[in-house]
């Protein structure tokens, strides 16, 4: 056990010497890893912020229900009962055909034209205020109302919600794609960096093998190197995203002010942070172990 710990301490020491031995190259490598992390993470941050923003907007949807002109008071009562029952309807208002006609005369300036009509052509209508819900729920409500013979048209004001939802789904897809691409990139970057490390330490590896070093002894410093590089590189990536948000902050505040809102971009939460850190480190480790396996065999 103590021997095992000593071997690991030795490997870590060797790793730190690798880093310290070429500070400029190590710094540049970290920056490369950092940028590979920052791009998907930055996109994720934007999408997450957009989603939060969407949650904050006044999302009460409106809908209008028009009855057929021939609807009688019994029909009205039935539709009203339907509306009262539904949980998605928070509030409704009945607009009778006379009231609608009056409103139209006042607002449209078509008073004279309407006065010339022998009968009122407008139907009874309801305006609904709907609870915030998924487009599917709203569709279900619309279909239920349309099923009633007295209901002529149901106009849902949900298009914008659908579009925003679709946009966010698209954004998430983009995050996944970009993350997969840059993850693969990270794997290759690490594999290549480790390959170069192996080449520069070729003599040491060769001599160590000749005097009885096991493969794991030789592998260990490189794997620690990859872990350290993954962790530090991920931190650099977070730093880059934070810097970008800081740069964007004034513009976002200005934009929000135009809408009379207060909004500030926020960094990804601890959960996302942890997952990203873990993913980057594991990818880095995987790249390194593939590279080490491949190149150590070649040195046999």
């Amino acid at each position, binding site marked *: 056990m103590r021997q*095992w710990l000593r071997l690991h301490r*030795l490997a870590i020491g060797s790793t730190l010497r690798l880093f310290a031995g070429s500070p400029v190259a190590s710094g540049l490598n970290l920056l490369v890893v950092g940028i590979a992390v920052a791009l998907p993470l930055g996109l994720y941050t934007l999408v997450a912020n957009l989603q939060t923003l969407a949650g904050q907007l006044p999302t009460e949807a409106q809908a209008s229900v028009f009855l057929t002109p021939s609807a009688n008071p019994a029909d009205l009562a039935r539709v009203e009962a339907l509306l009262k029952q539904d949980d998605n309807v928070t509030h409704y208002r009945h607009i009778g055909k006379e009231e609608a006609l009056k409103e139209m005369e006042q607002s449209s300036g078509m008073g004279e034209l309407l006065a010339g009509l022998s009968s009122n052509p407008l139907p009874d209508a309801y305006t609904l205020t709907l609870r915030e819900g998924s487009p599917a729920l709203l569709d279900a409500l619309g279909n239920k109302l349309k099923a009633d013979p007295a209901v002529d048209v149901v106009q849902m004001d949900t298009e914008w919600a659908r579009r925003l939802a679709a946009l966010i789904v698209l954004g998430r897809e983009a995050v996944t794609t970009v993350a997969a691409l840059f993850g693969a990139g990270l794997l290759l970057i690490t594999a290549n960096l480790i390959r170069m490390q192996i080449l520069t330490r070729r003599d040491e590896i060769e*001599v*160590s093998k*000749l*005097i*009885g*070093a*096991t*493969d794991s002894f030789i592998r260990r410093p490189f794997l620690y190197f990859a872990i350290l590089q993954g962790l530090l590189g991920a931190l650099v990536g977070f730093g880059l995203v934070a810097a970008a948000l800081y740069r964007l902050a004034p513009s976002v505040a200005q934009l929000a002010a135009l809408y009379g809102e207060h909004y500030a971009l926020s960094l990804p939460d601890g959960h996302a942070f942890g997952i990203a850190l873990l993913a980057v480190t594991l990818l880095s480790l995987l790249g390194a172990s593939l590279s080490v396996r491949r190149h150590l065999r070649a040195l046999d």
Partner: protein
Amino acid sequence: MIQFNQVSKRYPGGFEALKNLSFQIDTGELVFLAGHSGAGKSTLLRLIAGIDRPSTGSVIVNGQNLAAIRRGAVPFVRRHIGLIFQDHKILFDRTVFDNVMLPLDIVGYDRREAARRARAALDKVGLLGREKLNPVSLSGGEQQRLCIARAVVHRPSILLADEPTGNLDRAYALDIMELFKSFHQVGVTIVISAHDETLMADYGRRILRLSKGQFTQ
């Protein structure tokens, strides 16, 4: 104990470096390996150290057949062998002392005990005062001594030296031979290869003469 049974070694490309060799070296024996360049001396030593495997036959070192051993077990065989190379194979990115520490670091030896042993080994080869230097500043003869210190620091039971005096003048070469003699006196099995037989003659030990991969007498 080292035992070769009908060993042949053919390298990729068809060159046959050793042809059907059988011999035995007893524990604690000092044996010279003579022959011109290309006679197969280095190949023979590489087979004993498990660096190469024989094409046919068996190579038995300390009771293990290196022709059939698992790849992962080879390092543990080598830990009982000290290797001395004509080109020293010293690492120039670390001090003289750290070069000697390497074999002990590899097995995870206790640092303080390892440092004590490394100093003892350096003392033995007369480099104790120069342990903090970079090996670049050592002369050829001193680098060869450093290589010897590294080969003996983990107290191997077998010492293999491939042309250890090849690049040295006679006075230095005699120094080195005296060192080997002193290791031999404490019971280490030693195989030394050289193309110059004049050094060997003085010691009255067994000489294995190789020519084109076969023994000659």
